[in-house]
């Protein structure tokens, strides 16, 4: 029998990790990506990657990493896969080191580690403040090596539109669009791996890259895949507000000693440096003496919201607080944080080595995603998912520097699992559904080109982003979520009257965007309605009307499925695997 054919969609860390394992095992792999894979969103990760290697003599263990991750995620993650990830992490760091990632070093030439949020241990390996870039490049280089040996074929500049499913609902390939010729084609495969990242674009502005629309996940959800824990959206406490996007200011700034503060007096007009120590309020250090500035992100984000909106202490009355590094010497800052300091300097104009940075929370990470089993397979046979596109490693809140690990670990698991599945796969009935799926996608494209209404897709997108950011991020009220859902329904109505100002059939980026937009609207309803149904507060999901965690009712995975006739989601709930660590209250303010 010929080597199984696997298609990987997405060339960030998870996708590349899967490709490497498949190529190494002798599989035959096609890699699809909207952008050249070296430009994938993983490059934006800054601070580092977690593994309990205990090179600082603190007594760190993989069990403590596991416990921090489960506790940080407010017990919503299934524990068995998280445990396995934490146990595999130290060897993955070694592998990345062998691949040439320029990790920061100790004087003895060993890997250096720093502390990140939600832990008391120095567990985060890092390459300056551009760790994601360096890890992505290492995997990209290995994939290029396999590519030059003929084991991998790249399709860069292609957009995934849907899975090709046979008459039994089994995946037999993908349908994709060439973003230059705009031609739609189906590709056969024995298994497909979706590694298409987060869904930041539904919030309009976020720290995510332009390609992070969630379109692939939403397309699969409409084809019958469960979407799990969609309501869990991480809003990063420290982002730089911008006109086109929110730029991340890494947690490593606080890991290296950065302090968050506001002037104690409402309306204090003095420059930051002119405000004496006694007139500054280091509210995180006061409220959370044990973890200080390194509380988990959901906790820090809510604290900043409270200080700005309840105490009215935002800098100059604006929704901003200081993130201060000016007490740390320049050489240390340059050695450990230069990448992010440059971003701030370039986009804001001030030197953060001299002047405290002005930051505010911004949408950052998608904890939810395609539902997968412990083998990383969705409920559609032959469709696997890995990385931020799936839901399984972070529960209700992701700890900083765990995402890079979950992407690489998830990709490494998924590749071999997909091969094992493909080897046992029986031949497809008929043509495997290729002709039918191709016709369906071509029809959708024809409808879009012939649509002659008045609506501009980019304006619909702006309204979606504003609605989602206002109502479905940090503080959630049922009434507002309900209104957001109604607004999305209105936007879906208006989408029917869309007017493509560009109807050409060559490198038509607004055409591709408009197709993504429809999927964004669908997945936004999953996020909003999931939030509406979860009447409790857990991790990143916070409802003032229901301020406590309710394990009896909601220690459950939310699973959304698409009801085609009603054109909306249906919800069910699944028990969470808590066999290793019994759930306990999550209290970062408590002394213990």
């Amino acid at each position, binding site marked *: 029998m010929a080597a199984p054919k696997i298609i990987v969609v997405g060339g960030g860390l998870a996708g590349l990790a899967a490709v490497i394992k498949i190529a190494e095992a002798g599989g035959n792999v096609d890699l699809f990506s909207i952008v050249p894979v070296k430009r994938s969103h993983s*490059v934006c990760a800054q601070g580092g990657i977690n593994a309990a290697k205990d090179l600082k003599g603190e007594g760190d263990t993989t069990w403590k990493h596991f416990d921090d991750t489960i506790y940080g995620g407010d017990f919503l993650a299934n524990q068995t896969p998280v445990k396995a990830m934490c146990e595999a992490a130290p060897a993955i760091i070694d592998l990345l080191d*062998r691949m*040439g990632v320029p*990790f920061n070093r100790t*004087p003895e030439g060993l890997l250096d580690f720093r502390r990140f949020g939600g832990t008391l241990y120095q567990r985060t390996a890092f390459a300056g403040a551009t760790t994601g870039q360096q890890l992505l490049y290492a995997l990209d280089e290995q994939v290029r090596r396999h590519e030059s040996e003929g084991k991998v074929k790249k399709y860069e500049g292609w957009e995934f539109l849907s899975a090709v499913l046979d008459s039994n609902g089994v995946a037999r390939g993908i349908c994709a669009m060439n973003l230059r010729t705009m031609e739609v084609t189906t590709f056969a495969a024995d298994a497909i791996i979706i590694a298409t990242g987060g869904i930041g674009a539904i919030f309009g502005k976020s720290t995510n890259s332009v390609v992070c629309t969630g379109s692939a996940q939403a397309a699969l959800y409409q084809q019958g895949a469960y979407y799990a824990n969609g309501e869990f959206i991480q809003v990063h406490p420290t982002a730089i507000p911008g*006109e086109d996007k929110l*730029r991340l200011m890494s947690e490593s700034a606080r890991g290296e000693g950065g302090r968050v503060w506001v002037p104690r007096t409402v309306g204090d007009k003095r420059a930051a440096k002119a405000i004496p120590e006694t007139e500054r309020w280091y509210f995180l250090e006061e409220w959370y003496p044990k973890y200080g500035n390194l509380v988990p992100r959901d906790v820090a984000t809510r604290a900043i919201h409270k200080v700005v909106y309840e105490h009215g202490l935002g800098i100059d009355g604006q929704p901003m607080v200081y993130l201060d590094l000016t007490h740390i010497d320049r050489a240390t800052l340059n050695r450990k944080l230069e990448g992010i300091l440059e971003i701030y300097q370039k986009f804001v104009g001030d030197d953060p080595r001299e002047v405290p940075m002005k930051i505010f929370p911004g949408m950052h990470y998608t904890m939810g995603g395609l539902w997968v089993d412990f083998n990383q397979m969705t409920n559609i046979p032959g469709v696997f998912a890995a990385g931020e596109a799936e839901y399984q490693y972070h529960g209700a809140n992701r700890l900083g520097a765990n995402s890079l690990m979950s992407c690489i670990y998830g990709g490494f698991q998924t590749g071999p699992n997909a091969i094992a599945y493909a080897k046992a796969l029986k031949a497809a009935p008929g043509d495997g559904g290729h002709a039918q799926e191709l016709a369906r996608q071509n029809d959708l494209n024809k409808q879009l080109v012939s649509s002659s209404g008045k609506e*501009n897709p*980019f304006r619909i997108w702006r309204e979606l982003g504003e609605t989602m950011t206002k109502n479905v991020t940090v503080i959630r009220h049922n009434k507002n979520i309900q209104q957001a859902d109604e607004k999305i329904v209105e936007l879906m109505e208006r989408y029917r009257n869309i007017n493509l100002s560009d109807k050409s059939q*060559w490198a038509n980026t607004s055409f591709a965007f408009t197709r993504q937009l429809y999927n964004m609207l669908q997945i936004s309803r999953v996020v909003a309605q999931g939030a509406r149904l979860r009447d409790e507060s857990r991790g990143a999901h916070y409802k003032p009307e229901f301020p406590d965690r309710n394990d009896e009712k909601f220690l459950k995975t939310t699973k959304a499925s698409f009801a085609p006739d009603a054109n909306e989601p249906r919800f069910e709930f699944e028990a969470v695997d808590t066999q290793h660590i019994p759930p306990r209250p999550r209290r970062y303010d408590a002394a213990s």
Partner: protein
Amino acid sequence: MAEKTIQIEIKRQSGPDASSTWEKFEIPWKPGMNVISAMMEIAANPVNASGQETTPIAYDSNCLEEICGSCAMVINGKARMACSALVDKLEQPIRVQPLTKFPVVRDLAVDRSVLFENLKAVQAWVPVDGTYDLGSGPRVFPQQQEVAYPLSNCISCCCCMEVCPQFNDATGFVGAATIAQVKLFNSHPSGKVLKEERLRALAGDGGVQECGFAQNCVQACPKQLPLTEAISDITRDVTLQVAKDFLRA
């Protein structure tokens, strides 16, 4: 009072073989705007300065924080990243055109796959034995890391190639970015196993000898890579390799 606006002129081309034209836009000013957000504004309201309806601009972009390397273009005559080109710091009208040394796909989007092909030719990777657990990596002292890290920051934007007078069809020069990656991998404790092959790939036509020391590359690089230093180091290594190979033959 009239709303404050910005003037931007964009060189447009509907496809690789089409002729190009400049189109003018006047769009509302917003604080902190960059060239990308100006183009987002055009997409949301595709009307040019003469009031005619037009199409959104085609351009490459992704991260918008100068780390993915997508949005390189020529802005007011300078090759740079559009995301970090802040409108308030640019002379108006802002003139934006695609990189000139790479085939235009459409409008500002160009095909830079030549760089990725070059990286294959010089085997820009560490040839690990496998991805199974083989224990810890080689010891690397901080001093070595501090040499490697800046070279590893290359975002493949191709600005160094755009501004290089020697980067053209006549020379076939690989350009500074590829040479810097050769230095990076040749200095890695296990990456250096391919050192000789990489140097041979840079000997002869299109290799390091094509560099004319204009030093434009190091000035254009948005990530401040020590490109001229890498070129001179690798030129020396290539020369030595050629001599060694000659003597062995």
